[in-house]
């Protein structure tokens, strides 16, 4: 077990840190959705890399192969990607509605408007 044998986790963690930083730091709501997508992809990579087996091939039966990668994470991530795009579209729809109501998609400005006591006109 060498020190370098966990590099897949390090890549995942690096991507996850970037996604988290975008979500925390950027005020723009659309930016936050992009950050969430990056975060999501890091989780996908984590699952797939757990399921990968050295020297194996893709989990479709074929003559001459006996080692296959673990199909279970693939199934989970397959559904997760499509659900991810559905939820992303929902988030984008919310952004469009927020923009119509507040005329901005900047988080600070939205909070400033709310604290002004201005009534919601949704």
């Amino acid at each position, binding site marked *: 077990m060498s020190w370098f044998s*966990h590099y897949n986790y390090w890549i995942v963690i690096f991507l996850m840190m970037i996604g988290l930083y975008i979500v925390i730091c950027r005020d723009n709501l659309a930016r936050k959705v992009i950050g969430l997508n990056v975060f999501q992809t890091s989780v996908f990579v984590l699952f797939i890399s757990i399921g990968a087996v050295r020297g194996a091939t893709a989990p479709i039966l074929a003559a001459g192969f006996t080692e296959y990668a673990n199909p279970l994470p693939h199934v989970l991530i397959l559904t997760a990607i499509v659900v991810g795009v559905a939820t992303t579209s929902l988030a984008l729809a919310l952004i469009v509605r927020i*923009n119509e109501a507040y005329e901005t998609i900047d988080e600070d400005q939205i909070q400033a408007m709310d604290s002004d006591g201005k009534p919601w006109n949704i």
Partner: protein
Amino acid sequence: MLAATAVALLCVRGLFVASMLTGIYSLLSTALFVLLDAVDVAFTEAAVGAGITTVLFLAMLSKIPSRSERSQAFNFQPLPFLVVLLTGGILVYATQDMPEFGDPKAPANLHVAPKYIIESEKETGLPNMVTAVLASYRGYDTLGEVTVIFTAGVGVLLLLGRKRRRVLGESVEE
């Protein structure tokens, strides 16, 4: 390379450019999934990431005025960076307990996966294990996922489907 794209995604300024870079990002992750033998996942990511997500982002961008993107440069904020760094450090420390990359003896590969690999052909007659597991063994999961997608579609239709009506100068919905 994926990481470099992510860094650029962090630093880039315009929203339009950022939405195009998400296209590249999903494209590179597709190649990564092919490399890791996850063919079905790569297929999905290629279809979804390049086609749907880009189009949806652009459609969203065309509905919001471009001035709402304050032309701010990448401003460095130390406290969130520290928090993120701390989280990452803890996670790196935690990976020392994780199994090695590609280890056939990893716990995730020992529990039910051999059963799927060996018996799915016999029990369902399908060479593609992913489809077999997706549709047959984990049918409940898939039913739930389809329900989630359906619900998201209904939600988007509820949020955006109506024509906007104006009453007394205020935008009133529903």
